């Protein structure tokens, strides 16, 4: 079975380490915060200027002046700091964030990522995504492996306008966890019950399949 949104979040959370500063993109990446392992502490960076994002507020705590990058009302955790957008992106661009998790429309074997624009259809803008992919060393892209019509989103070459060039090394789809190296996807893990054959069929870009591809365990 393809991973659920929650399972994707759980799998990403396994990449966390105690003391990590993490930026979670809008959508599935946001869910990762719910699965931080017991006894481990991470700090969430929200690019609108909040390091140490806490949970959503109670009704009483709601404050229009306290939002995250998704414009949702949030709280600040103990040890938080709040700063300007310039300072926030100094952190991001300067490589101080330990892990960035974000979604994408497409990735390719060169580590390119397209996530912000579908010409003629969607022109909302890149927000902070271009800075995040350019600034981070450690990025996990979460996405569906293929479109509803079965078209692969793991490509030889991205067809959509790029968000970043050559910056993606780790991709977690609903079917598999892959790493990008030397112009190929390397299949590292597969979703429970998903066959290597299905992943091969749904991966358009060059795919390297090791002898043993472990199944994820949840």
């Amino acid at each position, binding site marked *: 079975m393809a991973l659920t949104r929650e399972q994707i979040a759980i799998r990403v959370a396994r990449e966390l380490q105690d003391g990590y500063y993490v930026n979670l993109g809008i959508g599935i990446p946001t869910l990762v915060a719910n699965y931080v392992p017991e006894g481990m502490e991470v700090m969430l960076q*929200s*690019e*609108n*200027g*909040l390091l140490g994002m806490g*949970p*959503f*507020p*109670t*009704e009483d705590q*709601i*404050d*229009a*002046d*306290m*939002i*995250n990058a*998704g*414009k*949702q*009302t*949030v709280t*600040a955790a103990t040890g938080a700091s*709040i*700063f*300007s*957008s*310039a300072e*926030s*992106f100094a952190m*991001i*661009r300067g490589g101080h964030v330990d892990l960035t998790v974000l979604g994408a429309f497409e990735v390719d074997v060169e580590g*390119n990522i397209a996530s912000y*624009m579908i010409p003629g259809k969607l*022109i*909302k*803008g*890149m*927000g*902070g*995504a*271009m*800075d995040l992919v*350019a*600034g981070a060393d450690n990025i996990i892209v979460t996405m569906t492996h293929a479109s509803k019509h079965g078209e692969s989103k793991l490509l030889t070459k991205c067809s959509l*306008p*790029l*968000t*970043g*060039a*050559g910056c993606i090394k780790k991709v977690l789809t609903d079917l598999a966890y892959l790493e990008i190296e030397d112009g190929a996807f390397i299949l590292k893990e597969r979703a429970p019950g998903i066959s290597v054959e299905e992943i091969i069929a749904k991966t358009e870009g060059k795919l390297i399949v090791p002898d043993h591809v472990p199944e994820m365990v949840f």
Partner: protein
Amino acid sequence: MSGFDKVVHSYEEAMAGLEDGMTVIAGGFGLCGIPENLIAQMKKMGTKDLTIVSNNCGVDGFGLGILLEDRQVKKMVSSYVGENALFMEQLLAGELEVELTPQGTLAEKMRAGGAGIPAFFTATGYGTPVAEGKEVREFNGRNYIMEESVTGDFAIVKGWKADRYGNVIYRHTAQNFNPMAATAGKITVVEVEEIVEPGELDPSQIHTPGIYVDRLILGTFEKRIEQRTVRK
């Protein structure tokens, strides 16, 4: 201390001098920390052909979005404009120009504009449509693009508290783009929730020193929430 008394007493006075075709830099992120009354005054003035530099363009009917209703905006420089149907409509009809700028680059362009730095290099956007027409240069084996700074004829800013010297502090994440915007206007106008006595703000804790502020006005704010999310 008339020379340092930045307080003005009407929104007309606050935005006096704004003319058709000017560039306005606005603080705010989404609807958080936006100078809502200064924007309303711009709508009232009906100034046209404006270039607005702001991370977002508000929403339909609130924030910078209201300037679209009478087609006052010629061009937006923003990182994200997805919350605004009227914006999309005018954009797709070719009535509005948009320069999509990565959020961090936008913040840095404002800061650089205020800081006398005409251009800087960033890896952000290299190899993407943002890099088109921009110089690429390698530093330490990595490619970067050159981005030029931005300044405005006006900067409009939303603060929390200020003294009459124009020293401003921001509240929580309503800080966002406001401090950079404040540095980058030929005329910087700040509206705040409270004007305090000089000396009340700790000098070491001022976000925007008064030197950047030309006009200061006390306002009341709706502070509309874009995504009301609560804990269960």
